[in-house]
């Protein structure tokens, strides 16, 4: 147990150092850093517009009130923001495979996946998204008149963290295809499109698509389940499924990762 705690502390320390170095790097290019935040604020305003459109319409859709839908949109913005912090690594992966710059990372005595997928953290995009996402969640939670309890908050945070973990695992798999196909921009765009399905609460989609998005490609688990849990609209088996789905996708992702590394051919510089 002590060994595991030491290991966890070490990796968190390294993650902190990556965050510090990434921030230092981004601050080197001040204009770019500020422009990144400004562009993301623009995108966020568009998301906010349709969020408030839902609210103004004041309709309930397939069992979700407009306030609860606002929470779902807030959760999407929050998780997307957090995911965006590690996203540069995902985008860099196919380049690293193509030009062989993965080489040095493969020789370090730390978990390779940790190093490859978390060493560059972005701050420009997540800052406005996280702030806005949290604000929408709090606003929606209050407006929906949901009880603010410890179990509610803990459950919500836990399901959000599971959602973030699921996002990381699920959307890493398409990027790993670059080990086979080298250039995977088409697959990359496809996975972006799939992620965009979460833009709106899953209740707007037909039942068959909801099932597909919960059990086959569990994207709807990511941003809908936290709100459904707080609104007491998530059954126990479905709550268990949220964690099981994360564990299953993680196992699948590790399998693909290991196979991918065996395929690495390391282009010469």
């Amino acid at each position, binding site marked *: 147990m002590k060994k595991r705690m030491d290991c966890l502390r*070490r990796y968190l*320390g*390294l993650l902190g*150092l990556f965050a510090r*170095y990434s921030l*230092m*790097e981004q601050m*080197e290019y001040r204009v770019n850093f500020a422009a990144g935040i400004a562009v993301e604020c623009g995108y966020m305003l568009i998301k906010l517009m349709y969020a408030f459109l839902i609210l103004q319409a004041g309709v309930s859709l397939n069992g979700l009130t407009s306030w609860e839908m606002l929470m779902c949109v807030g959760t999407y913005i929050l998780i997307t923001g957090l995911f965006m912090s590690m996203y540069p690594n995902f985008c860099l992966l196919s380049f690293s495979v193509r030009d*062989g*710059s993965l*080489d*040095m990372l*493969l*020789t*370090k*005595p*730390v978990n*390779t996946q940790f190093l490859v997928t978390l060493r560059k953290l972005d701050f420009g995009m997540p800052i406005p998204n996280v702030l806005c996402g949290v604000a929408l969640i709090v606003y929606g939670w209050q407006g929906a008149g949901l009880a603010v309890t410890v179990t509610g908050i803990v459950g919500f945070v836990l399901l959000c963290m599971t959602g973030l973990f699921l996002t990381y695992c699920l959307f890493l798999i398409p990027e790993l295809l670059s080990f086979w196909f080298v250039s995977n921009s088409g697959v990359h765009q496809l996975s972006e499109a799939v992620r965009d399905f979460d833009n709106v609460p899953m209740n707007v989609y037909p039942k068959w698509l909801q099932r597909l998005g919960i059990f086959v490609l569990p994207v709807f688990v990511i941003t809908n389940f936290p709100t459904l849990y707080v609104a007491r609209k998530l059954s126990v088996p479905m709550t268990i499924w949220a964690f099981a789905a994360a564990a299953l996708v993680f196992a699948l992702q590790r399998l693909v990762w290991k196979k991918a590394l*065996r395929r*690495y*051919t*390391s282009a*010469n*510089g």
Partner: protein
Amino acid sequence: MAVIEAEQLCKQFRYSTKAKGLQGTLHNLFERQKLTKTAVDRISFSVEEGEAVGLLGPNGAGKTTTLKMLSGILYPTSGTVRVNGFIPWERRPEYQRQFAIVMGQKSQLWPDLPAVDTFELNRRIYRIDPEEYRRTLAELTDLLDVGPLLQVQVRRLSLGERMKMELIAALLHRPAILYLDEPTIGLDILSQRAIRDFLRYYNQQTKTTILLTSHYTADIEAICPRSIIINHGRVVFDGPLAQVSEVFGHKKLISLRSRQDLDPQVLASLGLVREFTSNTALMEVERDQLESCLQQLLGRLPVMDLDVKDIPIEEGIAYFYQRSGEAAQ
């Protein structure tokens, strides 16, 4: 004791060709001709503890691929390797802490930050004791004379300075084995010499096992008492570099300059004329005919300057490259 033991190591890459033009591209879309390239072809060698070994070979010979398999970057197609008892491509942290790799064309430094930040990251990755880290860093920066550059962003450093920083980053955890892939590529003469001097000194002082690839014979001569020549993925020579030139040991080169124009026919009667201008010539003669050749040259020609040399080592290496190339065909 052998630190590195490679047995029948083989690495093949699959690739496909494409005919020229749009037609070739369209054809390629539906059907691709799969080919196999054998980059490393069942090579076997061993390296003793503290030894410095040079890997020589033309482009595409398999040197870098061999280093990448030894460092665990690549999985081999077949064959075995044991480095200090570890199988490299299992990528065990215990093994990864024992070696370092420096590649002339790839960097581990964060370009927008000063090198000292990467060093700090490596300290944490390799779990180096802070006091030991300070001592090692001071020693290495002193040896490589880069103290004032530690606070400069890597992207602002010259290539030579960057390479020195790469070496420091690689050596902070005091690896027992150091893999170097063309560490002096693209460097000016002074930087090349500085890196060479440092590596030779470091190898002698710390008994770190070094495996070095380079196209510069001077690197190998300065650092490695033993060389392995690889071509077409196979070992074609293994021994001291001086022995390479022994294939031409029975020959000598005579470089001469005359006061008057030289007669090429006279020169040709004395030996093989390799280069010729009106009053200068470079001749190749058999060693046992050297004395008589010199007597005749000095007696028959108004020689102003004359120099007798061994065949350059590069020609010995080229001979091995060509010979193995012909054998492979």
